[in-house]
């Protein structure tokens, strides 16, 4: 049970909770702007998940400096790979969010509304 109180358990749980909340926001909010916000929350939650998965207790950041011996670095540092993935994912995330926003903006320009229920000209 003590395990559950370790950082990575907390953060993973948090990330899942954030994910569920974000998804709830995505399918419950009528405002497109809110949907995009929810989307970015989901994004953040997944980044958090990936970083948590990389964590190993009592280890330091994957940077070899005075604190970490070069020789047995493998026993000292946490996993650098998910960090690299998350770096990429964050940048992709802002790209997609910005794109969604500009779509939302042009849609708003046309119809003067952000209610997703009003955008149903395509159906069936």
């Amino acid at each position: 049970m003590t395990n559950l109180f370790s950082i990575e358990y907390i953060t993973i749980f948090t990330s899942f909770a954030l994910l569920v909340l974000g998804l709830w926001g995505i399918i419950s909010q009528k405002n497109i702007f809110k949907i995009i916000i929810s989307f970015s929350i989901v994004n953040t939650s997944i980044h958090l998940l990936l970083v948590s998965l990389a964590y190993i207790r009592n280890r330091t950041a994957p940077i070899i400096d005075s604190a970490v011996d070069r020789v047995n670095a493998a026993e000292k540092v946490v996993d650098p790979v998910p960090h690299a993935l998350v770096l990429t994912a964050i940048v992709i995330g802002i790209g997609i969010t910005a794109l969604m926003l500009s779509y939302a903006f042009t849609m708003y320009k046309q119809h003067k509304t952000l209610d997703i229920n009003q955008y149903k000209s395509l159906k069936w």
Partner: protein
Amino acid sequence: MVSPIYIIAILLGMAFMLGLLSKSGTRIAGILTSVSLALPVYISISWFIQILSGNADAITIFTAGSVPPFSINLVMGLEEAFFTSAINILGLLGFIYLSADLKKQGVRAMALYLVLIMGLNVVVMTRDIFNLFVFMEIVTIAVAGLIYLKNDNQSKEAGFKYLVAVGIISLFFLIGIGFFYFYGGTLNIDGFIAANSVVVKGATIAIFFIIISIILELKPFPANGWALDVYQAATPGVSALISSGTATASIFVLYKLLPLGSEIWLQILTVVGAVTFLGSNFLGISQKNTNRLLGYSSIGQVGLLMMVIGFMPQLGSAFKMIFFSVFISHFLAKAGLFWLSGIVKKESITDWGILRGSNIALFLFGIFLFALVGFPPFPSFYGKWQMVMELAGTGRFIWIVIILLGSFFEGLYLFRWLGYAIKGEKSNEEKLQIPWDKIVPPFIFGISLFIAAYYANSMSVYGNTINLIPLVFILLLFVIDFLPAYIKNTITIGAMVYYAVNLYPSISDDTLRVVFAAIFLIGGILTMIAGYSVKGKRKGFFPFAVMMYFGLIGLIEAENLFQFFFAWELMTLGSYILIIRGKFSMKHAFNYMLFSLGGAYLIFLGIAMSSFGNTSLDIGIIGLSTMPGWSYTLLAIGFLTKTAALGLHIWLPGAHAEAESDVSPMVSGILLKGGVFGLIVLFLAMGGEQAASHPLLYSLGWLGAITALGGNLLAVFQEDAKRLLAYSSVANLGYILFALAFMTNIGWLSALTYSINHFLFKTLLFLAIGGVVLRVKTHNMYEMGGLIKQMPWSFIAVLIGIITLAGIPPLSGYAGKWLFYNAVITKGWYFQGVLVFFAGTIAFLYCFKLIYSVFLGQPKDRFRKVKEAPIWYLIPQFILIIGIMIFSARPDLVLKPIGALLTQSSYFPSDSLSWENVTASTNLGYWSGYKIMLVIGVMFAVLLVWLMYMSRKTQKVKQFNIVYAGERPFTPETTHFSHNMFSHYYKALGFLSAPLATRFWNITNDITHRIADGSKRLYTGNGQTYLAVIMAYIIIIYLIMF
């Protein structure tokens, strides 16, 4: 060879470079973009060719000077080379197509396009899961940008829905990747597969998220609302890229990632694919918006591809061929159709008549549709065939039914669309604008379909048994379509004569086949002669006429079921186009295609069931079927749709009556025999005489009898001369079915006599009436009358025709009847016999009506000046009359060899007919055609002389020289004697001719459409609902999995 890494470098480098160009440099940018799109085409194709020919091995491209799993690697193998080639070719052509739109948006839009193609290439080649994610995101974003190109309200909306939906899907993918790495300790796909043997605990959930997101990217039904909106709203050029380009990459990704998962994923994929294929195509049938319709079809095809992948283990070595065939048809045809849609610029498929403004566009449209539905010789035909056969081999019939049902729905809406294009209304003011850059890409894809067809043929197991030369000839006819009709007619007739001469020796020992070959080829040549009367070019007629005849002959030549079905489909396709050429035949041709397609798929299913447990595909295996009840019934119903048995007949009258004057005899006198031949093949395979007590035959006997009665009853009350003849054909085919169902020697003999007779007199009658219709420009008999003076030769032809039809001595119709009643009595089916006999008497009524109201009575004023039918119509008529005369006088010439064959064969050993010179006798009596002819001839001559002597006193009056209580009737035609001629009979018998079948099919059709229309409402248009459906889809698959 050039390393594939340069594909990335060139495309991406050029995309970055374009930023340096000034905004006005679109011309230069266009050229640079084309060049940089062309280079990857070269690179990937050269790899494909080299690897395929064995000159090169698949290579792995390492990056970062390290090896996987430490660094990302790309692979260029045979499959990758194939898919990147496809994508790059599409990329280049798609750019040419889109260049005008892109130029409008400036240099940046071109950079966008380049990045999209680069992304697709990497998605195919990469072996690293996260790299895959990144480049899939690139593709997503680039597509989202391209959707915006159209820059209208709908495209914005669709683009946003797309972005959100795919965004969510990719987030699930990312979760999957996180756990993939956590549990697998690698990001390399191959590394993971290798490690999977140790069963990585917990990795199943990672794989679940990964594969489910790829499946969702493939737009499974019903979690695909966003995709449909995109297809509808984007510029067609972009939709083509999405449908053929990104879907290609995604399907390959699925194929690449599947080995990660366990076997159960294959089953899930099969179900997902089946649901998608069936559901999407079903909803498509009530769709009118062009691009959305294509979207439905596109999604359906991807579903089929998923099914193919899901069945990978079952398909075994045939997998590659099947996948290739289905894939390439979809890839080429769907892109082509979207491109054409961009040229036509019509939102509704009902407005596609404008396509007729361009022959080349119409031609391309046709082949794309045929390729999608899976008609031979296009690749998907081979693919579907092979797939169905492989599935049948393992007894998966439910899946076959799903595939065929889905294909049927797809055929339904595609052929409705084709109908609108060929026959739909078209205003004269609108002109189809076809710039070269818009037509070149679909043209290249159209040609590629034929090349792909050739490869599919050579990869197919039975492909080498198909004779491709006639197909080449058909293609040649398309090429020379610009020539005048008479030249093409001569070439066609020449080719048919040549074919007949060459064919004869190979089948001469089988009289049965000779008879049918003669009907098909001699009949074909005769009806083609009538075609000389057509002036102008008669575009698009000859290729399809030849296709139909080649299909018919193919049935005879077929040695295995593959050839048989190939020929059957060709025949269907050719005849459909011939029928739709008629002025008002759009609806009827559609009905014809509907029934033909349904019938063809029943035959297909029957063949599949027969093949279960058998190793070969010889035609004889039908008889060895392990599920005889099913295969016999399915095949029989399939063939009966072609012979128009009552209940399945509703397509026939319209199709035959509304066809062009010289096409009606082709489809009525000749084409129907294709169905008869099918029945003969089936019944022979069932075992001939030994199967005589089979319950199926008993019911078919009843069906035949009822069809004979019903057909004649319906014919009697017709006012339309051609419809009358058409219904009469229904009845005659009923006789033939009835006689065949006896399964006795004499029964078959009479059936064959009927077949020959029906060919002779129905071709004759349709030609003669067709000639009349050509002159008087109406089908309604009560508007004609007294034409005997103007058209004496046609009169004689019709007279001979109806005498034969009615079975009045001395002509050969009587011979048929004589044999027939002999057969009925021997068989002992008295009650059915009475029905048929009664039907025969009804035939007298309409025969009389036909000759009386058209040729006799008072001539109409407006027809006083009409000329005799064209000489080209009369020549074949009199050749047919000569044929009837010979057959009537010397039936032994034909019947003796047939009888001998039937008796000698193991099928019908008990012979009950004996010949003595010209006299045939059974234990019930004897008959000599020659003598009867002589006796009746003398009687006829005496009567004629007497009549002529009597008629010298007749007095001429004006037609409407009657008093109607001081008023003239408003429509004097309706007072014509022959108008509503048999109304008094109608009171007594009318209830029998109630259009029950029509009503039944109408209701079925209506219900189907309503259901489709109702379920379509699933796609509410609300992007949020779509997202909820996506999430629900994930949950459902999860529940199935765990």
